[in-house]
């Protein structure tokens, strides 16, 4: 990477009411939004330092409802990294996020892409219906990173976003050095994000 400013487009996706906006606003503005209005689409910018390097993040907070599905392909095409969010107390949202995962890969036409799976609402432990093991198994099968977070308690919020940044960096680095074809084959199997788990 050159000396010019590093800049990533992150997209937060997931079913309705899982806490995408709560996570995003907690990350950007460090407070927990308690109002309950569905998002249509919001974008934020934040400059942060990851591994000693400054990065400018353009974060797109999207609508969870199927109603706004028309906009989905568009932002999926432009995103460089995805935070797939589901709620640990909502089985529907867990199934939904798996659909999103497939859709991202399809739009990107790739087998792997920088994605972090986030199980939100970890504070509602008593209402949990998705076990950590299940989600972790799904993530491992698909070579993506899994984290549990709580936007309310600011648990693993920054970590999720920053982890995604690290994964994007590694991914793009690998992308930018493809000429050694006989090499990459080996590197891909060993160097893709799944090994980092």
């Amino acid at each position: 990477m050159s000396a010019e400013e590093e800049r990533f487009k992150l997209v937060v996706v997931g079913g309705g009411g899982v806490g995408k906006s709560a996570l995003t606003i907690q990350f950007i503005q460090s407070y927990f939004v308690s109002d309950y209005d569905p998002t249509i689409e919001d974008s934020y910018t934040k400059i942060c330092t990851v591994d000693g390097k400054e990065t400018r993040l353009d974060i797109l907070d999207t609508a969870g409802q199927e109603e706004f599905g028309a906009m989905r392909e568009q932002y999926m095409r432009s995103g460089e990294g995805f935070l797939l969010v589901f709620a640990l107390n909502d089985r529907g949202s867990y199934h939904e996020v798996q659909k999103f995962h497939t859709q991202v890969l399809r739009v990107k036409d790739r087998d792997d892409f920088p994605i972090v799976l986030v199980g939100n609402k970890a504070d509602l432990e008593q209402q949990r219906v998705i076990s950590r093991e299940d989600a972790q198994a799904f993530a491992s099968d698909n070579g993506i990173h899994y984290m549990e977070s709580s936007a309310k308690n600011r648990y693993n919020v920054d970590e999720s976003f920053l982890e995604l940044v690290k994964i994007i960096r590694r991914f793009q680095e690998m992308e930018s050095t493809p000429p050694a074809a006989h090499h990459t084959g080996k590197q891909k199997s060993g160097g893709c994000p799944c090994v980092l788990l």
Partner: protein
Amino acid sequence: MPSRDSYEVHQEEKSLVQKAKREANQEDILAAALGMRMGPQKPPATFWQPLKLFAYSQLTSLVRRATLKESDRMPKSEKVHNFKVHTFRGPHWCEHCASFMWGLMAQGVKCADCGLNVHKQCSSLVPNDCKPDLRHIRKVYSCDLTTLVNAYNTARPMVVDMCIREIESRGLKSEGLYRISGFSDSVEEVKTAFDKEGEKTDISVNAYEDINIITGALKLYLRDLPVPIISYDAYPRFIEAAKFTDPEKKLEAVREALALLPPSHSDTLKYLMAHLKRVTQDEKFNLMNAENLAIVFGPTLMRAPDLDAITALNDIRYQRQVVELLIKNEDVLF
């Protein structure tokens, strides 16, 4: 959603063509039958259409049809036929020109709603007098609202009635009602069930425990309508209404716009809005106020007729305002 878009364009085009043809139609047939021209206008179309008709040498049936049309000229419920290319088994005769439908495959077209069989060439001459027949309506989703309601002879589509009844029977206190998505595969399952089994579909708590699957199925039904609840014709008037700042004028403009909706659409809308009003009355539990519901139902009930992405995006704000207004003033508007 390219498929839906293309469908809309197609529909619009078709209805325009049909309308024009229909006007020219009766005069043409008469002219053809009497072998003379009628009226002062003489575009090339009127000239060669009779020729084409003569080619079928079905003068008698044409005269019969022309006079018949003359007698029952009042179009009661004007509905465009939904012609699809069809392969008939055994000999068939065109129900418009009465001549034989030649060929082994794709001999003609069949109206998917009423089952009228005609030549492809004749399909454009048939008046918009489609009376949907239950036997021919195979689907519930993606079926035109007026068609469905006429076919089942109900005030509202059964998906709307059944889903709302089910949701209300389970109570309206579920958090994020209409906001939280149900598992999409289950929602699709409900859709398939409605298409196959109609009123017998089981959407009880035993079949689908998650209420968000039922709300999802209802929203999907409304989104799948070829013409949205707020019809394309009325759409601009609603958007204009939302732009008024004076609340009195706004309400008046919405009321005027509502009058433009087809009866089946306005009945369904009325029922739905009364239901959503009840949802807002449980806001303490479900956290869904009129504004939140309006965000979700904006694109469900309203779709911009033109496909310009920028306008569509700008309209989202107004769509929300319209639906919010409809929910809040449901009691005075309908």
